[in-house]
């Protein structure tokens, strides 16, 4: 029997491989922290809410690691939880906000190398362009272009069919490229 608990964690009662030891999990989570944050940010678009989602994801991973079936990679399993948690937080936020303008957020401050004014403006434009994509498409494009995941892993992490991953990705790329071209 396989199902999805409220926590957004896949559970089943089939025998599974032993979960990673505490030390392995610590290391894995430290390595996955940035990816978890980016997935959360791609969905919720608010840096502080994304951090809350990342923290909630970590707690759910620690709580549910014994349920990890081992038939996907730990990374895919963790990012799936991150996505589900983020979607849930986004829904809660939308329920609470009555003025849609309260939902729009500024681009997070860049910590990269010192940018020119044009570089910063381009970054802001990219951030605004992401707003025109739906949360699922944003997650797909981040998992593929930033996290460099395979189509199959993305389909599993987001629980969507493989062809949907592809069309969302290709459309998102075209939309973003068109916006950035127009801006230039």
């Amino acid at each position, binding site marked *: 029997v396989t199902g999805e608990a409220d926590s957004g964690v896949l559970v089943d009662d089939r025998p599974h491989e032993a979960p990673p030891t505490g030390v392995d999990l*610590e290391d894995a*989570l*430290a390595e996955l*922290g*940035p990816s978890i*944050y*980016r997935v959360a*940010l*791609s969905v919720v678009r608010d*840096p*502080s809410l994304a*951090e809350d989602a*990342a*923290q909630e994801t*970590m*707690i759910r991973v*620690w709580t549910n690691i014994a349920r990890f079936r081992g038939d996907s990679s730990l990374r895919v399993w963790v990012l799936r939880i991150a996505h589900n948690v983020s979607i849930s937080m986004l829904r809660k936020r939308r329920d609470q906000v009555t003025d849609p303008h309260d939902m729009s957020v500024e*681009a*997070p*401050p*860049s*910590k*990269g190398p010192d940018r020119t004014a044009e570089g910063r403006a*381009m*970054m802001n434009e*990219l*951030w605004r362009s*992401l707003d025109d994509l739906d949360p699922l498409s944003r997650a797909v*494009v*981040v998992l593929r*272009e*930033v996290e*460099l995941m395979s*189509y199959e892993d993305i389909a599993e992490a987001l629980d969507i*069919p493989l*062809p*949907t991953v*592809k*069309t969302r*990705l*290709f*459309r998102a*790329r*075209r939309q*973003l*490229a068109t916006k950035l071209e127009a801006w230039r």
Partner: protein
Amino acid sequence: MSASMISDRTLLSWLDGDPVRLERHLTEHPEDTDRIDHLTEAPQLGEQLRDAMTMPEGFLTRLSALRGADQSRREAAQVLVDLFSTAWRTAAVLFADEEQ
């Protein structure tokens, strides 16, 4: 596997105007995926997105601290459960002995 006979232009028009049809097409002709991948390639996008999504200052440190706090919370909760269940467990042992 070779690509289908559908032209690049048609594939892109489905992508923009009829994604459901494109999904159906890719299900039947997964070999066309590489073609559309190439047609929509955005070489700088990954790097730009990574730059635009930098983590807040101290994020990883806070996550690490969270683990410690979560463990302490669980241990404290377990102590409380043990404390309040001791009487019941003792009674259960005593009554079990009496029944025997």
